[in-house]
């Protein structure tokens, strides 16, 4: 562990939240590093600093407008920036108010229940009684509703006469308001459905992009990124299977676009690139994602050009995947 890492971790060593392997490494480092032990002492001082508050006696004296060991402005500045101390000062002010004003009557103290088991049993019993009463009441209401429905069915259907036109009543106004809110809810539902559709389309595009990036990439190599680049001017190149691999290849035939195809040892086409390989300096690249080749072995990178509408085989390279 370096000193930089060690010094950064010291506060969490002190608050006891480092995981054991990290803690063991840190302690091992501290045992042999005086610079970091000095930093540890400074971290402990920082703890003292950030856990310093106005003492309770000074806080009470301040609230009671009595002399304190700390200057008033020090206390006030601290209260302005320390929420816990400010909350405590408010509690003390409340207490002082109770001393000074006999007309202020606090709420009665709630008694702590000593037998919670009894309370739970009582509550369960009360709940079951309530359930029985409610169920009985519901059953009775259901029976009443049923008998009313039967009576209504037996009654002849009255002829409804439209009432005379009148000014809108409170019920009609309420009904209009509810219809407006329903309409608003329907419109909002429509908006949310449209948003969900748009999000689904974005997700589908992203998924498609991810799938595309899982395939070999043509001319994706950046000359500033040397990782995984294998240069070869011959027809054979070895590339690792478990990391990104970018063979750099040289064109050996006529200048024209090249289209790549990758075949396995049995000649089965694993991939056909639709983007042409073109580079001005006769070099071109194909980047293979980590783990793209099914297994170690020999593969063929066959390049094609298109002339007069027909595919013409050009260079081919043997890729030995390790």
């Amino acid at each position, binding site marked *: 562990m370096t000193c930089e890492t060690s*010094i*950064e*971790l010291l*506060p*969490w060593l*002190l*608050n*006891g*939240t*480092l995981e054991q392997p990290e803690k063991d490494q840190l*302690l091992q480092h*501290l*045992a042999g590093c005086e610079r970091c*032990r000095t930093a*540890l*002492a*400074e*971290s*402990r*001082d*920082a*703890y*003292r*600093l*950030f*856990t*310093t*508050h*106005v*003492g*309770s*006696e000074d*806080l*009470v*004296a301040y*609230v*009671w*407008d*009595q*002399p*304190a*060991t*700390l*200057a*008033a402005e*020090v206390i006030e500045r*601290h209260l302005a*920036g320390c929420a*816990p101390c400010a909350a*405590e000062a408010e*509690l*003390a002010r*409340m*207490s*002082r108010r*109770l*001393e000074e004003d006999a007309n202020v009557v*606090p709420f009665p*103290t709630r008694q*702590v229940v000593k037998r919670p088991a009894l309370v739970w049993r009582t509550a369960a019993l009360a709940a079951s009684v309530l359930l029985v009463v409610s169920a009985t009441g519901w059953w009775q209401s259901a029976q009443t509703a049923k008998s009313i429905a039967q009576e209504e069915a037996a009654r002849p259907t009255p002829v409804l006469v439209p009432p005379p036109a009148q000014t809108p009543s409170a019920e009609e106004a309420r009904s209009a308001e509810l219809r407006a809110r329903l309409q608003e809810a329907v419109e909002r539902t429509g908006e949310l459905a449209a948003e969900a559709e748009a999000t689904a389309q974005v997700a589908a595009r992203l998924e498609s992009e991810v799938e595309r990036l899982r395939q070999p990439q043509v001319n994706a190599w950046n000359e500033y990124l040397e990782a995984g680049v294998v240069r070869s001017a011959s027809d054979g190149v070895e590339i690792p299977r478990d990391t990104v691999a970018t063979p750099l290849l040289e064109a050996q035939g006529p200048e024209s676009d090249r289209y790549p195809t990758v075949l396995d040892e049995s000649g089965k086409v694993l991939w056909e690139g639709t983007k042409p390989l073109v580079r001005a300096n006769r070099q071109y690249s194909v980047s293979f994602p980590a783990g793209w080749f099914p297994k170690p072995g020999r593969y063929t990178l066959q390049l094609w050009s298109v002339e007069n509408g027909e595919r013409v085989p050009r260079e081919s390279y043997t890729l030995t995947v390790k």
Partner: protein
Amino acid sequence: MVPNDQEVVTRFLRGDREAVGTVDDWISRAAWPYQRRLATRWDDVLQDVRLEVTRLLSTGKFRGESSLRTYLWRVVSHTCLDQIRALTKWQLTDLEVLDLGDNPSSWPTPTVPSHEDRDLLLRVLAKVSQDCKELWRMLVAGMSYREMSEHLGVAEGTLRVRVLRCREKATALRRDLLASGPLADGRNIPARGSPIRSREANSDDL
């Protein structure tokens, strides 16, 4: 001193029912605002307060420079505040149990700050940025760096560096304040018992 106050103290210490009842009523009323914060151990807190009141009265700490009622009100308040703070007190990892190689006894052990130290530390703290105070508040509350990183939405490395910079700034502030001397920063170090405020002194010991 109001004669009734001394009489009440004497009778209370003798166990007189009426005096004990009067004092207990004052204690209950004075402690009422703190009850919610101390609800889980309220009975114990009240008992601790009664013991503290009894201790102070029996050792003659009350000298009558304020009314007995006001004196007891303040005792109840600061005792309850101490109880609240004890509930949230952070625990520093005990370095003595860590095997840290040579000369571990040379390291400073945490102590309750003296008044002068506390004054200095509070002045340093007043100059520290609110962001730094927030970071260290979470640390002192026992959050791991992973928890803090998730809570704040920053990378773990960034968080650790920020905490380190805060510590370094606070150390530098403390050094600067110490170097500038006790009067240059406007600090007023009172002699013990002398009033700071303009009101009449009340030096009843708490």
